[in-house]
């Protein structure tokens, strides 16, 4: 089969031949050469557009015209660089912003929780007297739920942690960090083991028990330069002695799941007997259940 180039060339040549022959015939019939050429062209028609039409027969119009349009558009863009730059910037900005927002939302909302058995985890909520949904419980409520054994496992953390800050002193420069009180079962419940050390023991969660604190990975790096001998180190937390019993891995981010925007640096044991007194009128605990 002939290539398309060949077809085009043949077409071109035969059209030229036609004109030549016609001119010859007209000259022979008495016209001057110029007149003949003019007349021939007139009677033949617009050579360029006719040749174009002849070629179109062999083209796949939609796809090819699409390609031509793209090439035309690119040429135009190249001819007006300022416009192109602005357009590209705007597009880039829009796409970038979109991607950024999406990745944040995706991480917050769509990603499954990086905990053990995420689809069996549940927030325990309850309906208040005024019809609103609440996530906070008194210690007594928590203990009831636990005893009822409605859930395979239950854990809790202090609800009002956003308002607490902890003063660290005694072993290095004093510092104030955000922290949250968690039940002894909190870390095992979520399947988040400390990188160093261990989670809280029940003894540490009892009134007047040994002071203990678990550090976040970030705090460990900042305050202790990631030294592995921090376990067992003594310091003062809110002017009370405490021992560092564990360090959480960098992948554990309390804030990301429970309090977006908050950077939690220390975990304290939730001593129910203390929190019990806080109970009214606030609810002091938040419950999470494993079903």
């Amino acid at each position, binding site marked *: 089969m002939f290539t398309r180039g060949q*077809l085009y060339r*043949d*077409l071109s*040549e*035969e*059209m030229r*031949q*036609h004109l*030549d*022959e*016609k001119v*010859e015939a007209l000259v022979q019939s008495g016209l001057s050469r110029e007149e003949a050429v003019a007349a021939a062209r007139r*009677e*033949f*028609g*617009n*050579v360029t557009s*006719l*040749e174009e*039409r*002849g*070629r*179109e*027969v*062999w083209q796949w119009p939609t796809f090819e015209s699409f390609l031509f349009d793209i090439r035309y558009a690119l040429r135009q863009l190249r001819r007006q660089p300022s416009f192109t730059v602005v357009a590209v910037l705007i597009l880039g900005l829009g796409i970038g912003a979109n991607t950024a927002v999406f990745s944040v939302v995706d991480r917050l909302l769509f990603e499954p929780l990086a905990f053990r058995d995420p689809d069996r985890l549940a927030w325990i909520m309850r309906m208040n007297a005024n019809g609103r949904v609440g996530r906070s419980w008194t210690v007594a409520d928590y203990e009831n739920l636990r005893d009822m054994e409605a859930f395979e496992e239950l854990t809790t953390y202090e609800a009002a942690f956003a308002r607490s800050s902890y003063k660290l002193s005694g072993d290095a420069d004093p510092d104030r960090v955000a922290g949250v009180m968690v039940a002894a079962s909190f870390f095992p419940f979520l399947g988040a083991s400390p990188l160093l050390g261990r989670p809280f023991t029940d003894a540490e969660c009892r009134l007047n028990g040994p002071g203990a604190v678990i550090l976040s990975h970030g705090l460990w790096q900042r305050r202790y330069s990631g030294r592995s001998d921090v376990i067992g180190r003594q310091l003062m937390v809110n002017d009370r002695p405490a021992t560092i019993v564990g360090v959480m891995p960098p992948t554990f981010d309390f804030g990301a799941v429970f309090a977006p925007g908050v950077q939690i640096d220390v975990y304290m044991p939730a001593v129910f007997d203390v929190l019990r007194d806080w109970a009214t009128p606030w609810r002091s605990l938040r419950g999470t259940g494993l079903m």
Partner: protein
Amino acid sequence: MMILRTLKRQPMHGYALTQHIKRASDDLLQIEEGSLYPALQRMLKEGWLKAAWGVSATNRRVRIYSPTPSGLKRLQRETSSFERMLEGIRRVLATAEA
């Protein structure tokens, strides 16, 4: 249709074709000569014509067209449908006059 008919009787090249049509219709049909070529290309693509380079009466290198079997079949279909249409129009005009 007229192209196929002409070429059926005598394969020829483009210029000769236009001359023939002009002569045969006694100049009643005024066609833009060049428009023949896209039409020929289309018929080539459809497979109704085949083209070969040859030499004309005036010793020029020309492309000579001739109908293919499917071209002849098409000619027949076109002719009969045209004649039917013509007959129909004629009848309508006849009754209108009467």
